[in-house]
Structure formats: structure tokens, C-alpha cells
């Protein structure tokens, strides 16, 4: 075992890892630039006419969330996002976009959008996230079970069953999925704060991204 061999392997290994890290940083920079540019040029990709929003119209920080009612992480993030909005009253506007990546998840989006017509959107979303584990388990999804829980949101179920087949909802989901693809959202929840994507995923990172945007705008 020669010393120079060990050194050679260590240096080459270190160099390869160094290249990898450089690659990551170049790629991330490029992506951030690309989406920042898109946010300026093409704001409608982030917020469509049909998109549901929560929060004051005067808010200067737009938090766009691509979510899926059947996604566990979206459910886990929901209270966190609400707390962040409560901690910064009037400064954050939440825009809900759909990326129903789970099998058959558009079924739940349809129920949500039908509930929106009854003015019970947020109540329904709350119920969905809270009861999610009962109907959206990965090895045994049982979408029909959701009907058992929906009355808790105070919904007219007959009306929901009618409204959810509205072709407009189908169109809306298609548009959101197309925008998700354009914005390179491949996992849910996908967050953008004033057009900037959340690059490293986590509660703390999202909070930092939002706080930075608040600092810049207020």
C-alpha cells in the first residue's frame, strides 16, 4: 500500500465531490433565476383567475402553494402556514393551487371546489386534512369514506355531488397541473414566495423565505 496511491484516491474522490457540490450550487442558482424571471414576466402562471386566495388584498407577500388534498405533508404544513399568516397579519396572501399527484386525488379537489360554491371551502379543507388518514392511506385509499366526514363542514352533500361534476372544475385542475409543470413542481406541497421557489424543503426554510420577503417589502 503506497502512500501516493492513497493521496491520489483521496484527491480524486474529494475533487469529484467538490464538482458535485459546485454543480448543485450552479443548478440551484440557475433555477432561482429562471423562476424569478418568470415571476416578473408571467405572473399569471402563479396566480390564475380561478385561484382561491386567503388574506388581505393589500398583502405584499404572495405565498403560492401547490397542494394536494390527499397529501400528508400538505396536511402537516397547513396549520404551520396558518400560524405564519396569523403572526404577520395582513402581510401574507395565500394562493391555493392544485397539484393532485396522488392517484385519484382530483376527486377531492372536485369536492373542495364544489364546497367553495357553498362558501365552505376552508371548513371543508380543514375537515379533509384532519380526516385524511381515514381515506387517503397509501396502501388502501378509500375515497368514498370521505363522505362520512364531510357533514362536519356543514355542507349540503346533495349539492356537492351535483356541483363536483362541473366541467369548469376539470378545466381548472388541468390548468393548475399545467402551471405546476411549467414551474417544475414535482412534489407537494410546492411553495413559492413572491415567485421564489422554496429550494430546500422544511418548516424553518419556509419561514425564513417568508420572513425575508416581508423584510424586503415592508
Amino acid at each position: 500500500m503506497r502512500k501516493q496511491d492513497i493521496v491520489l484516491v483521496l484527491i480524486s474522490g474529494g475533487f469529484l465531490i467538490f464538482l458535485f457540490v459546485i454543480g448543485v450550487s450552479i443548478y440551484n442558482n440557475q433555477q432561482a433565476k429562471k423562476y424569478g424571471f418568470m415571476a416578473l414576466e408571467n405572473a399569471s402562471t402563479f396566480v390564475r383567475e380561478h385561484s382561491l386566495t386567503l388574506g388581505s388584498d393589500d398583502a405584499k407577500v404572495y405565498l403560492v402553494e401547490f397542494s394536494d388534498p390527499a397529501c400528508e405533508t400538505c396536511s402537516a404544513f397547513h396549520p404551520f402556514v396558518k400560524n405564519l399568516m396569523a403572526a404577520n397579519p395582513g402581510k401574507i396572501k395565500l394562493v391555493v393551487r392544485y397539484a393532485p399527484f396522488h392517484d385519484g386525488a382530483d376527486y377531492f379537489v372536485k369536492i373542495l371546489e364544489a364546497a367553495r360554491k357553498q362558501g365552505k371551502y376552508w371548513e371543508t379543507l380543514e375537515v379533509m386534512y384532519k380526516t385524511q388518514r381515514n381515506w387517503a392511506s397509501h396502501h388502501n385509499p378509500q375515497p368514498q369514506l370521505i363522505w362520512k366526514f364531510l357533514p362536519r363542514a356543514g355542507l349540503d352533500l346533495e349539492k356537492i355531488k351535483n356541483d363536483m361534476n362541473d366541467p369548469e372544475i376539470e378545466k381548472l385542475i388541468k390548468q393548475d397541473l399545467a402551471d405546476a409543470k411549467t414551474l417544475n413542481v414535482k412534489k407537494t406541497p410546492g411553495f413559492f414566495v413572491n415567485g421564489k421557489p422554496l429550494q430546500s424543503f422544511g418548516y424553518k426554510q419556509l419561514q425564513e423565505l417568508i420572513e425575508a420577503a416581508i423584510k424586503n417589502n415592508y
Partner: protein
Amino acid sequence: MTNLDQTSNSNWTIIFLCWIVASISTLGSLFFSEIMEFPPCALCWYQRIFMFPLVLILLVGLFPFDKNIIKYALPLALAGWGFAFYHYLLYSGFIPESLQPCSQGASCSETYLDLFGFLTIPMLSLISFSTIVALLYILKRRLSK
């Protein structure tokens, strides 16, 4: 004596080159899946299964140089080459879509990357496995002389 030294030196270098190729391929494939977030298809996973361990096995064979490394590394490299070749045929359309084994999740024939108009991910994999197999075969011939 110097002659013998030189031979064993180039033998070591051959394994070292194999290790470099395996390391580049491993880091590259991790870059595609973890950083660029291309979902690896089923066939990609089989190729990864045979590529990733090569990095460690070859490294162990380098310190101290162990000619038995061929015995352990070549089967992995050949199996990986088989999957890479099949994937390449599928990708370039020699095998029809209907024979495609992965129907769920990522498609094995979808193009994600096209460097310089001809370098695709399955092609990179085939090149890596071919290089490793060729180098190991050369070493085997040298040692049996």
C-alpha cells in the same frame, strides 16, 4: 524488479480508473435524481443497484491491491451492462413500447436529458458500464499472462 513494479502499478491504475468511472456515474445519477429531481425509472434503479456498490468494492480492492477484485466486480459490471444495454435498446426504439416493463411511475423511454443532441442518460450509463467491463477484462487478460 522495476519491470514487475511497473506492471503492478498499471494494474492498480486500471482498477483506479474503474473506480473513477463508477464514482462519476454514481454522483451523476444522484445529481439527476436528487438535485434535478428526475424520477428514476425501474430500469434506472436496476442499473443503480449494480453501479453503486462498485464504488465501494473497487475502493476496497485498491488498498492493498487485490487481483481478486475482478472476480467480485466483473459480475456486477456485467449485470449492470445487461440492463444498460436493454434500456438503451428500449430508449432508442429498437424494442417496441408494448414490451416496456415499467408502466407505473416514471417511464423508461421518456427523454429527460439530451446533451449535445445525442448523449442521453441511458447512453451515459451504457458508456460507463462498457468502460468498466472493458477495463476489468483487460486486467483479467494481463493477469492471466
